[in-house]
């Protein structure tokens, strides 16, 4: 690419021209901003305004443009010049819409606008057009870990889309739990009868598929690399090892049934006639094979009454058992009660539940169960006592409000799903040893062998808007391993995960970022010669993208990187940067503002705002004409995690009177799109107090606040309160020293 030619465009539209001197902004761009080309326009986003810019790019070979107009969030279709480097100074939402009308405010408002122009010019000169990472890994094969219904579905759906697939299953046969069911709950109209699991056909179409290769009795011994170039060592039972390269991974390692021996009070392990739902499926399959009804395990006697106990060892608040609900169990018990009713309507079947959970069309299945004569009773079971060939189920009948009991030949405990998540990388090694977990993926990642876990040992996934966003790019959890679920949902989930895997390999092959900065071609560039091997970047990267080589230098795996810049924020020696986002691109903006002297009574407050939530909130404050102090200068950042403390110290040294950082909520219900960014910023700022004291500054001169995107009114208030506080503690003594 040829050498840099800069241009600045000042829009006069939307009242900018009326309320500000565009002329002066142009002068600032030219004189101070040193822009080689400066143009004003009455209506820059109009067809001919845009054409003017295009012509400059074509004829004048402009490579870097600074647009002073509306927010970078507005008019994105018009201001779309993919071949040049661009930044935008937010004069509309950020200045005229957030400042009061009238001459009184005129001067400081103009100063605000001029500063934004200065900052834009300073930034653009430090930006480059991202070329995309040279690490464009081309392998597009999908590895599916687990051959249950989730894994098989993910495999088949990927293959049907034209992708090569590899399945690694630790058992000797495919099918998982689904293969151990007699029938399944219906997922299509009519929702009235148990239906065939279809697992046989599914296995057949997978094994016969030309694009699917299957490893049985096999586990993953090691996984290294990154999307587009994962290297996987597969260990098979017979000792034979294989190495395969894949582009992305779907982890469908499934679940294990909660151990009913942990439920002795419910007869678990006490009697053959007390089984879990899986146990009953086994009996049903056995009976079907012999063409006779289900017999009583203890003596092969006839079964005349069956009790189903819901939430056995689930929804437990005592901390002894599973705290969550496994979602499928109500429908499953209804289905199993139907097994009996269909073989002999005379058999009494009672389902004891506290909340019957059959969402959606499951309600029809519930009705169908009642219609067959299955009895449902709201109750809390206290004890199952086995005697001889029968069991007494003692329970509190919640509707009839009395202690009650049922005699049953067979008792089925609806126990829950325990995810096969592998090792919990957030636990200390010794704690792990105690839990004796077996790793699923055996990642060679610096941050641990498996995907991080969420509450209850469920495998990572961002859980409302973006269910597949695990913290390990290119590795997607699917099925009950990440959330308890039934077959119908697991099938959908696996299909979605397959798409994300496909997306990951496509992105990797083009050197593009994955969600949430999808399509971003910038990537972290490190000047290793300056690196002090402090390891902060490798430890703090929320996505485990950075490993270490034998010399303990960081090794960046671009296609694992999500471009949040947390590493850049972490680096004490500032050797990490992106082509279009770097310590300098922000640092220069901080230095560029025109700093009034300490007698001017015009403080300057730097606002570093998260571009995902805080910055939009500020825009909307403008749209709603919420007025805030004209002394602030806002700089959007990719994530507070990318904020390097050098910016803060530079600002304070440069005479800024206060620094505000606005980021997303952190903690349990974190809302940071990069998971730990705002949390890390908070942690780092905790440390900055010492620096402030050294500089002889009040600690209030730096503050962090959690802001939600809906806080349009609140951000203005926060700013004004902070401005008031700064007025109170007075101007920075550092002014004029810079």
């Amino acid at each position, binding site marked *: 690419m040829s050498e840099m030619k800069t241009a600045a465009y000042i829009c006069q*539209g*939307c009242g900018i021209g009326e309320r500000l001197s565009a002329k002066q902004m142009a002068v600032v761009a030219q004189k101070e901003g040193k822009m080689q080309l400066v143009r004003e326009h009455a209506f820059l986003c109009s067809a001919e305004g845009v054409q003017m810019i295009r012509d400059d790019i074509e004829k004048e070979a402009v490579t870097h443009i600074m647009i002073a107009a*509306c927010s970078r*969030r*507005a008019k994105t279709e018009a201001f779309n010049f993919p071949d040049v480097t661009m930044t935008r100074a937010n004069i509309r939402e950020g200045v005229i819409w957030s400042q009061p009308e009238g001459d009184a405010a005129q001067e400081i408002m103009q100063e605000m606008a001029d500063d934004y122009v200065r900052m834009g010019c300073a930034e653009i000169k430090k930006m480059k057009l991202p070329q995309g990472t040279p690490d464009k890994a081309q392998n597009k094969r999908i590895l599916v870990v687990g051959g249950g219904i989730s894994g098989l579905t993910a495999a088949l*759906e990927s293959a049907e*889309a034209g*992708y090569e697939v590899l399945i690694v299953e630790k058992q000797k046969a495919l099918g998982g739990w689904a293969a151990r069911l007699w029938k399944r709950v219906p997922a299509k*109209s009519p*929702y009235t009868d148990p239906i065939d699991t279809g697992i046989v056909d599914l296995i057949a179409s997978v094994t016969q598929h030309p694009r699917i290769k299957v490893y049985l009795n096999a586990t993953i011994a090691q996984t290294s690399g990154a999307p587009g170039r994962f290297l996987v060592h597969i260990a098979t039972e017979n000792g034979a090892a294989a190495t395969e390269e894949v582009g992305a991974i779907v982890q469908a390692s499934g679940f294990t049934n909660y151990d009913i021996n942990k439920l002795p009070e419910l007869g678990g392990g006490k009697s053959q006639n007390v089984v879990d739902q899986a146990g009953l499926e086994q009996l049903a399959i056995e009976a079907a094979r012999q063409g006779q009804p289900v017999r009583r395990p203890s003596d092969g006697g006839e079964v005349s009454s069956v009790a189903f106990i819901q939430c056995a060892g689930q929804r437990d*608040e005592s901390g002894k058992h599973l*705290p*969550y*609900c496994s*979602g499928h169990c109500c429908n499953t018990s209804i289905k199993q009660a139907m097994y009996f009713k269909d073989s002999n309507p005379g058999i009494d079947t009672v389902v004891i539940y506290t*909340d019957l*959970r*059959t*969402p*959606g*069309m*499951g309600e*029809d299945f519930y009705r169908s169960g009642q219609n067959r004569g299955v009895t449902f009773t709201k109750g809390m079971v206290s004890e199952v006592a086995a005697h001889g060939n029968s069991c007494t189920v003692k329970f509190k009948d*919640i*509707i*009839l*409000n009395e202690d009650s009991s049922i005699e049953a030949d067979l008792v089925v405990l609806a126990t829950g799903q325990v995810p096969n998540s592998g090792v919990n990388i957030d636990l200390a090694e010794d704690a792990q040893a105690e839990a004796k977990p077996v790793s699923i993926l055996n990642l060679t990642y610096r941050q641990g062998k498996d995907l991080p876990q969420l509450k*209850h040992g469920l495998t990572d996934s961002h*859980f*409302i*808007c*973006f*269910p*597949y966003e695990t913290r390990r790019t290119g590795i997607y959890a699917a099925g009950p391993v990440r*959330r*308890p679920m039934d077959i119908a*949902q697991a099938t*959908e989930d696996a*299909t*979605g995960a*397959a*798409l*994300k895997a*496909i*997306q990951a390999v*496509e*992105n990797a092959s083009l050197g593009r970022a994955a969600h*949430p900065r*999808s*399509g971003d071609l910038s990537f972290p560039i490190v000047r290793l010669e300056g690196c002090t091997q402090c390891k902060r970047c490798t430890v703090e990267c929320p996505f485990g993208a950075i490993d270490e080589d034998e010399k303990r230098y960081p090794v960046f795996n671009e296609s694992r990187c999500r471009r949040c810049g947390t590493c850049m924020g972490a680096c004490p020696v500032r050797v990490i940067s992106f082509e279009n986002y770097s310590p300098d691109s922000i640092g220069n903006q901080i230095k560029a503002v025109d700093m009034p002297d300490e007698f001017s009574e015009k403080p300057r407050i730097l606002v570093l705002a998260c571009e*995902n*939530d805080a910055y939009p909130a500020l825009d909307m404050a403008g*749209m709603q004409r919420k007025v805030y102090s004209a002394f602030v200068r806002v700089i959007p950042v990719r994530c507070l995690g990318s904020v390097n403390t050098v910016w803060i110290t530079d600002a304070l040294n440069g005479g800024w009177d206060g620094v505000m950082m606005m980021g997303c909520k952190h903690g349990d*219900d974190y*809302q940071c799109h990069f998971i730990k960014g705002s949390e890390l910023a908070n942690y780092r700022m905790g440390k900055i107090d010492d620096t402030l004291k050294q500089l002889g500054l009040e600690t209030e001169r730096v503050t962090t606040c959690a802001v*939600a*995107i*809906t806080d*349009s*009114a609140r951000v203005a208030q926060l700013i004004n309160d902070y401005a008031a506080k700064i007025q109170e503690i007075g101007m920075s003594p550092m002014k004029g020293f810079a």
Partner: protein
Amino acid sequence: MTTPIATSQTILVVGGGISGMTAALEAAECGKQVILLEKSPTLGGRTALLYRYFPKLCHPVCGLEINLRRLKGNRNVRVMTMAEVSRITGTRGKYTVTINIAPRYVNGNCTACGECARAVSSEIPNPYNYGLDKMKVAYLPHDMAYPLRYVLDPSAIGTADAEQARAACKYDAIDLGMQPETIELTVGAVIWATGWQPYDAAKIQPYGYDRFPNVITSLEFERFTDLRGPTGGKILRPSDGKEAKNIAFIQCAGSRDENHLRHCSRICCMASLKQTQYVREVYGEEGKSTIYYIDIRAIDRFEDFYQKVQNDSTVKFIKSKVARVAQDGNSGDLILHGVDTEGYHRYANNHDLVVLAIGMEPSVKGVDIPAEIIADASGFLESETSGGIFGAGCAASPLDVNRSVQHATAAALRAIQVINKTAGVEI
């Protein structure tokens, strides 16, 4: 409106809510060409009108912002708003879709400066607040609207307002000559993500939604607590603007009821649990929420949230389908009559406000869709994987946001399979 180029390699996504946007973006980020159709003037759908999501109590527009940024940065998606499908013919791999586009009367020149809104005087009920307040006939749907472009309501056409709006616009963005258009597109696969609509609460006669002003729906309640809602984030009674501190939530309002909707709408239990936390947010210990339910369906991980709310001293649970709601004379208070079935306790409870946890109906009516896609007993779409039209999100099943996104992502892959197979792609 210039007809966008579409081929048998194009995926059409119908519906610009969370499901439609997700399906479109996920497909586009796999490199596919997508046309995203929305019948209203803005993307975002119903979730843009929710105050918070369960169980994290985070804000839906936060995810919307990310999705909009994905959209702005992606050349593969072309968005058409105010556009509705009227007919689909053809088969998997080659469909012809007839689309009606309503005039917006505002063209691409619009900078969203808002001068037109200031220039007009007449107002219409604001659909983005479920008609609980008014908006100008020239309006921006909401701050997160995309495209960020004003709309001139058809009712203004031919009135002085229209002229004033046009005069006020410095950018020739108001085009009163716009006409309805009908275009035809050829696409390879279709994702049907038209979402859901609340069941007509007035039909649930015993609860008196049509008679008592202080009986509202759960969706209306979302707007009450939203800063941009009709009450600016305060929980006030429609009848007298009094603070409503003692609030009843009636579950299964329309759902699980063969007189109305035979299915369970899945989201309502969690929605009400969530809304009790709005009451706490606004009134702290002074707020009082009572949930009248048959079964609390806080499936899987949501159980945590249920337990959290159960431990909230301001929230009470009564296992009962309320028999009827009566209004207490002129006070505007409401009396709920029924029986707590846990041991048979009769009640007649007073509340300031009653929120009906209203059920979900699929919005799939009135379109001529090929037989390959069929509806279940409640009208939700059941797609045949052998076909090329796939239901996504709440058009296909009553789902919460998380499951809708999952479902839409899966639908995107099924559409991609169709596209790749017709092109004979092998990777």
